[in-house]
């Protein structure tokens, strides 16, 4: 079953001579539970793609279906609610809310959804990311790798349909990078979590089931990875 379906997605900036095509009408589908890596040079449209899939930006034309629902048919409020329930986004610069502790950041999408805090679930996630002793620390008191693990836990908390990760290791040393990737792979295997990851790092891309290569806003290669 396809959990993510992208149809003829186009995003352009500017008008006339100054028009820049960031994405030139790309289409692809992602199966539930798979791990897809998106690679490409900088400026190839990777981040634009991820922002569109995450529903934080709107395309010039085209459609994105997540779990059978078309993202851009929704209004802003519906989209916000859809995001917190069905999408988990991990950014290169963690983007944690600076005034909330690690556990509060993790619970954010859950509590925004008006649900009662679930202690057991939080404890399990903290255990998984190995930050149980640092649960009550603020982001500024955590290392980069730890912050990134918090943001992954935040993406996982609502068991979203898709996790989108934008160069999650781009700002980390190799040890922390390995831990973060292992964590994402663990979620992919353990919870059959669909994972779409943008990366520069060929070593990381090769750990995925499938690699999509973007170049100048077009898909130039799309192939499975044989281990």
């Amino acid at each position, binding site marked *: 079953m396809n959990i993510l379906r992208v149809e003829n997605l186009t995003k352009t900036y500017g008008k006339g001579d100054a028009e820049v095509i960031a994405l030139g009408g790309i289409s692809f589908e992602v199966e539930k539970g798979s791990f897809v890596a998106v690679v490409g040079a900088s400026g190839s449209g990777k981040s634009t793609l991820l*922002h569109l899939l*995450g529903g*934080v*930006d709107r395309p010039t034309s085209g459609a994105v279906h997540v779990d059978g629902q078309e993202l851009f048919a929704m209004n*802003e*409020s519906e989209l*916000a*609610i*859809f*995001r*917190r*329930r069905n999408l988990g*986004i991990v*950014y290169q*610069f963690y*983007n*944690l*809310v*600076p*005034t*909330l*502790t690690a556990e*509060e950041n993790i619970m*954010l*999408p859950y*509590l*925004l*959804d*008006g649900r009662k805090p679930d202690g057991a679930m939080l404890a399990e996630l903290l255990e998984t990311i190995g930050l149980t002793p640092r649960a*009550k*620390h*603020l982001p*500024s*008191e955590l290392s980069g790798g730890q912050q990134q693990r918090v943001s992954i836990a*935040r993406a996982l908390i609502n068991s979203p349909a898709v996790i989108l990760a934008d160069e999650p290791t781009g700002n980390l040393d190799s040890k922390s990078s390995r831990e973060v990737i292992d964590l994402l792979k663990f979620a992919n295997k353990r919870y059959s979590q669909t994972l779409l990851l943008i990366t520069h790092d060929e070593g990381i891309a090769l750990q995925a089931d499938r690699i999509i290569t973007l170049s100048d806003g077009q898909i130039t290669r799309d192939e499975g990875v044989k281990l």
Partner: protein
Amino acid sequence: MNLAAKLAYAQLITHRRRTLWTILGIVLSVSMLTAVFGFAFSGFEAFYELSGGQFRAAYYTMFMTLAGMLSLIIFTASVIVMSNAFRVSAAQRMQQFGILKSVGATKRQITRTVLYEGFFLTVVALPIGVILGLAVQYVGLYIANILLQDINRLDDIVEIGFVVAWQAIIISVLLGFFTVLVSAWLPARKAAQLPAIDAIRLQGETKIKNARPRKHLLVQKLFGFEGALAAKSLRRDRRNFRATVVSLSISIFLFLAASSFGAHLAHAGQLVINPVDADIIIEWHSNMGSVRENDDTTRIEFTPLDLAYAEQITARMRAVEGVSVVAAGSTGSVNLITGGSVPAAYLNAPFRDYVDPDHTQDAVGLRIFLVAPDAQTYAELARAAGVPHGSNILVNFRRIQVDERWTEFIPINFNYQTLSIVEWDDVLEVPLHGQLRGDQVPNTVLATGHNSLVIIVPYVQAKTYHWYILADAPIDVQAQLTDIVLDFFPLEFLTENNIRLSTMNIAANNLADRALMRLLMVFIYGFVGMLTLVGLTNVISTLSTNIRARRREFAVLQSVGMTHGGLNRMLNLESILCSIKSLAVGLPLGLGASYAIYRAFTITVDFPYIFPLWEVLACIGVVFIITWVTMRFAAARLRGGSMVEGIRGC
């Protein structure tokens, strides 16, 4: 140009918007400082001249104390506004400092670029500020003089001169330069302390405190999860909110101080100048004649004015167009003319201490006048005192100039409901049914009692009777009003009975006094207006900075699924909490300032403290509204930008 200067120049050119805002800020603060001191000097000169060369030292102290306080306030406000202008781009700036450090710039070099920046900004802004300030002062005085013009038309020329106070300009220039340095230096110092790479990465940009966890159950119940978020960010991100809370508190402080200043200035002015509310006074004065009795004693005799006639005269005067009349007669009791004495026990302690410091006398000499106002005025006063018609009402009030200081007393201990007035061997018992404060009684009625202790009574044997007339055209109606009295009492009658009837047109006499009062009001409104303006600019600037600085945080919250409604709820609660916090700081400070200002006034006059109740209520209302509106407005403007840009932090 050396390197540091070049870098500073480049900063100013690249961040045009910031440069412009900063220049505007400096111009505003310098011009206000110049204007405030200019007004203070001009005002001092005018007051000094109008009061006939009295109280020089006291006026000087008063004006300079007030100008000093105002400039302190303006200085603080300017630092906040300007460091805000710098803070908006603090991120880019820190990054730049980080890069400079990474290529080997020392702390000193970085600090020097900032100093150059401040220098360039001041060089451009200071002259503009000073010129603008002088212009504001000139225009303000021009307006003030226009307001004084209808008084000038009559007789004396009252004019406030334009005084260019070089002291003011020097003070403003120094303060302005200092302001820029402080506001520019703050982010620079932080960048200089951070390791270069952190500055580049913008780590440690805000210090967030991990406050002890606290349950926000009530907040959560009222405002939902978003409310709890707001409470947390307010408690943990103090630095960001401090600027807002500080500037709000300062504005509250400003408003209370300024309005209190106004109220107390008006009151003090009234006390010092106290012009009688009349353009024309028509006086009936029955001269005494002494009659030698058969038993060789002397009886003093006069022809009192029949109050029934007086009422008829008053009624006819009131029928004249553009005229209002208060009338009062006094002292039928002959033995009170030279004043009587009152048992010392009847007096309140402070007054007794004043009239009889050593407590040696059993009865204290005290001039007391029985005053009977016209029926309408009497009825109003009886209603104000809450007593029935026919009552005697004590005006429990004496204003006495002690040394150079006007002092108000409440002389009589009102527990004694009967006042025994001793004159030679006679004792006159005057029952008292009610009392009024001095400010509840028209000053004309008090004037009839020669500003002695006044007891308002329904009836007296009027030896003197005054009609106090306020008229739109005093000169035109003067003769007509006098003729009304003459209709009842022809000239022959008056001569025969040794009665002097005089008509005084004091509209012109009161000129200087009224001009002084008008002048006072002009100054009050000028100051309050200026200060409110500073306060509002400040609050709006810090609050919108706060919101803009948190753009990324909002974008992140939205990207993890916070709706617009949720964001609004969060901001609502933040603005409420922010308002409460600011009020908790600002109100006590403002009331303290209001009391301090009151004390400054009591250098020249003594009167009770006026609690600014309405101003406090207005503060509370305005703080909530301005905070809420500004936050929502700033947030709405952010919403225009895309979430992606917010997340990237550009």
